[in-house]
């Protein structure tokens, strides 16, 4: 019923509009990063030649020109801008300067590991955050409720790299349950996933606890209780469904931040993923690689939030993308 109503012609128009908007945002992101990387006072030519292990000072003018030509840095800025933009549209991300390989190839190689890590982390975050929020709303013992309510604040305050190192110390070195580094099998996924999940779970728990508390104060909860339904049933079947909506929005934002969070987690656990590559690319000041990763991460962010917006009406029939006829 809902799905039929969902796919009308005005929805299609809405969809087209949103997709176009997403494309414009991505173009703007590319432009902003290009602007930062190429227009700031630092000399992009020198940066990139240095990244390619070329000693700029020792080059003769002719050699410098040849080196510039090799990396396409002798072109006017506008030409470079449109060349790269055209390349991006064709799926060509350019050439990494420090690794001497096509950026697209590097990303394709590293992305699966990061996605597996991100998916595990979000799954963990949902379970941890959801359970914590549910218990915080359900528990009636005052001190326990306070503890459960305060716990997420601790989670968002701890630096992720500290959490990662603490986990390594306890679970890899002391207890020896999981490997400290590497990518061998599922067991090596556990610690980095927890590292990424802690702040995410904490944020989810904060939002969900608040919205659960709000929902539990609504009259329909009292009505359901008056009809003789148990507290647990009312909270699980009535309040939770309504409370999940704001969480869905936040979940979109957090999902979109996967690549970002992976930067720290993958660096701590030495996992060869996109995040670790980002850290190395910045250290080497590899401009094309940094730019490709940022655009990719923004694309993930924009697409996921677009999807979340589109599925919203499925969860909340009160929200429609079709104009209301009054």
């Amino acid at each position, binding site marked *: 019923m809902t799905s039929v109503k969902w796919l009308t012609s005005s929805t299609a128009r809405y969809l087209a509009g949103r997709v176009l908007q997403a494309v414009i945002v991505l173009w*703007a992101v590319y432009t902003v990063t290009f602007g930062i990387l190429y227009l*700031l006072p630092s000399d992009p030519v020198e940066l990139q030649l240095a990244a390619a292990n070329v000693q700029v000072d020792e080059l003769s003018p002719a050699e410098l020109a040849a080196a510039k030509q090799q990396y396409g840095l002798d072109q006017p800025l506008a030409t470079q801008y449109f060349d790269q933009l055209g390349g991006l549209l064709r799926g060509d991300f350019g050439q990494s300067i420090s690794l001497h390989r096509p950026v697209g190839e590097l990303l394709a190689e590293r992305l699966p590991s990061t996605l597996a890590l991100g998916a595990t982390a979000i799954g963990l975050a949902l379970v941890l955050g959801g359970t914590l929020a549910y218990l915080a709303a359900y528990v009636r013992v005052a001190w326990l409720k306070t503890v459960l309510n305060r716990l997420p604040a601790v989670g968002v305050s701890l630096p992720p790299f500290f959490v990662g190192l603490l986990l390594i110390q306890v679970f890899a070195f002391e207890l020896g349950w999981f490997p400290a580094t590497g990518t061998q099998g599922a067991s090596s996924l556990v610690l980095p996933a927890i590292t990424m999940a802690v702040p995410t779970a904490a944020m989810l728990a904060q939002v969900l606890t608040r919205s659960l508390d709000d929902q539990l104060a609504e009259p329909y909860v009292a009505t359901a209780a008056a009809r003789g339904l148990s507290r647990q049933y009312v909270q699980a079947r009535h309040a939770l469904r309504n409370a999940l909506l704001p969480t869905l929005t936040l979940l*979109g934002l957090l999902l979109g931040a996967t*690549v970002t969070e992976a930067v720290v987690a993958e660096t701590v656990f030495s996992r060869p993923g996109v995040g670790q590559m980002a850290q190395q690319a*910045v*250290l080497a000041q590899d401009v094309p690689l940094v730019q490709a990763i940022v655009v990719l*991460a923004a694309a993930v962010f924009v697409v996921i939030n677009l999807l979340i917006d589109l599925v919203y009406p499925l969860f909340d029939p009160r929200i429609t993308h079709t104009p209301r006829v009054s």
Partner: protein
Amino acid sequence: MSVDLAPELGTRVVPEVAAGQRSPRRLGLLTARPGLILALLFVGFVLVSAVVPGWFTRYDPNATAGPDKLLAPSAEHWFGTDELGRDLFSRVLHGSTLTIQATLGAIVIAVVVGLTLGVVSGFFGGWPDSVLMRVVDVLLAIPRLLLALTIVTALGFGTLPIAVAVGVGIVPGFARITRARVLSIKALPYIEAARTGGASWTRVLVRHILPNSWGPVLVLAVLDFGVAILAISALSFLGFGAAPPAAEWGTLISQGRSYLITSPWLTLLPGLFVGLTVFSLNHISRSLEELQR
């Protein structure tokens, strides 16, 4: 997309804080006061020690002592010593100087630029508003840490670049909140009264609109102080901070990693220190928010 979501999130969260102030949690808020005092004391300690680290430790952060290397925490060396025998507590306190400088720098950039953008946007409206807000939308679509990494790539490494990188990342939030505030104040009767009374727009802006826009910006600044510390520690942890032997908090934690098995305190104690600082800041800003209502 972030364009639509951010205000939505805001409106959802804010009223709930207000709701929390009603009867049952009021008591919780009062019993939480000792927590607030502790948080203020700790943040005060961090700030003072960042300005004059010498008051709290008699060790030189860079003085090496071969025989005293990798000592466990003791009454003599509160946080133990590192691989060169340097006193870790002293290094953390001196690291505060750099980290707090970077954080303050980031916040100042965010407040000044964000406030300016927000005021221009909200006050003038029209096409400047549209253009600025679209730019803000785009900045919000780039995850903060990646935006910071882009800026660091372009600017190079060090305390100032990471301050700029983090500051630019939190500008959009300040711009948004200032714009909203200015828009709502602009519509109030006393602005109309001032105009009717013959005050120029400049005077209205400086005397009436700006002073009344401070409140939410201040709360956001305290809240983002914690966020900025985390971001700056993360950037210096990743290796983009000041050159050795100077060390921000993140750098200290990163350096201790090589000794994680034998001397875990080298990473865990500074990490705990950062966490405690951010937790205290978050606690203060939340209390501020609750008090303001």
